């Protein structure tokens, strides 16, 4: 899938504001007319860290890298990195690599 993958976010039909997660109303204008919209899964890595002590319930996943990504569409999402050992520096270009259940997984591009 690589760079062609998309991520579904929400756009306010009234004012056009984007929101990465469903909240029922637009936080910019309080309209309740939110539409699902697919945006490119490409962006810049804001920061990433390797979680070596996961919370109970995610122990089996660890260690795993959590990444904050500023999508080119203009919203910030939190996901994981496919290859934490790559040591991606903040500012690196990344793209959606796949999904772990509902968690977007990014990789360098």
């Amino acid at each position, binding site marked *: 899938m690589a760079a062609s993958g998309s991520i579904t976010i929400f756009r306010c039909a009234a004012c056009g504001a984007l929101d990465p*997660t469903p909240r029922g109303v637009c936080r910019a204008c309080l309209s309740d007319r939110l539409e699902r919209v697919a945006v490119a899964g490409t962006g810049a890595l804001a920061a990433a860290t390797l*979680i070596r002590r996961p919370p109970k319930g995610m122990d089996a996943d660890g260690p795993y890298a959590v990444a904050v990504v500023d999508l080119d569409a203009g919203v910030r999402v939190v996901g994981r990195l496919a290859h934490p050992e790559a040591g991606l520096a903040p500012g690196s270009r990344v793209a959606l690599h796949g999904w772990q259940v509902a968690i977007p997984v990014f990789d360098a591009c």
Partner: protein
Amino acid sequence: MRPVSVLGAGSTVFGRHPDHGAVELAVAAARQAIVEANVARERIGAVYLGNFVGGVLTGQEVLAGLVADGLGLRDVPCTKVEGACASGGIAFRHAVLSVAAGLCDVALAVGVEKMSHAGTAAVTQALNCALDHAADGPSGLTYPGLFALLWQAHARRYGTTREQVSAVCIKNRRNGLTNPLASMGTEITADMIANAAMIADPLTLYDCCPISDGAAAVVVGIPELAREALADPVRVLASVQTSGGARIAAHGDLTSFRATRAAAERAYADAGIAPARVDFVELHDCFSIAEIIDSEDLGLIPPGEGGRWALEGRTDRGGDVAINPSGGLEAKGHPVGATGIGQIYEAVQQLRGRHPNQVAGARIGMTHNLGGTGVACTVNILARE
């Protein structure tokens, strides 16, 4: 609004209390505060209790009512408040507001948490209740992880180094050595910190505050009642609470917390003082990098210079502004709901001139309590009367 004074303060040791439950700890701290305030219990017109994960980790709720009952208080409005790690600070502010608004002449604020019986993974999961589970929670982010992300962003923007952050760890744990309420004080070196177990890169074990039990309490009231108190009263110049970004998506450049900046700005205005007048601050160093970010957000140190100030000793007890002379969360531990009121306790002792780690000539002190992802914040400014 009426002026408000702290009339009495109490605190348990912050650390492990395997033989005492949350209610016992809270009652012990509150008893100490009430005895010191020397007010008749009938005058206490409101109880606010800060607690975060009591329900999750111990299965015990209605703590506010249980604590009031344990203190023999009758027919009093008892309210538990929750704002993640800022729960204690929020309880204090509401007690202050009750008196300031004239609803009662005396109010009790208590904070308590019981955590050390649970394993690290269970505590991590409980603390994750303060993440937005519709946004950041599913990723597996943890609080050490969040502050690791902030550290990387701060380092990228300002060049903050491991050595600078370690200076915070060393100072706070050294301050804790001489504070009898801090059970995690110790002498550590930069090498020990750098070589300790990695928790969330680049945070190591020594960058994290320990899991603790504890309780703290204060009695606040109208200044006229201070004549009866057994210790010097302290005036509340400002008590501010703000909200902030709940999701990581809401945090601009990840090097600052909007809730802290807004609370500090309002607190300085309410108190009518400039930041330079603050002699010391007890701030929310849940992780070492948090102290650097908080000190900048509070306007005590210019943005980006927090690390340098720490390394140069300018935040030591005899420095430009003493930061966490008690040892802070890193040396005291972080019994979450108790922390905000524990900070008030430490500040009150400083302003009375009888803290074991006394800041010479301290007249004005600040406390800062930050919850979750910066979703809740309280800032208080206190002064010697």
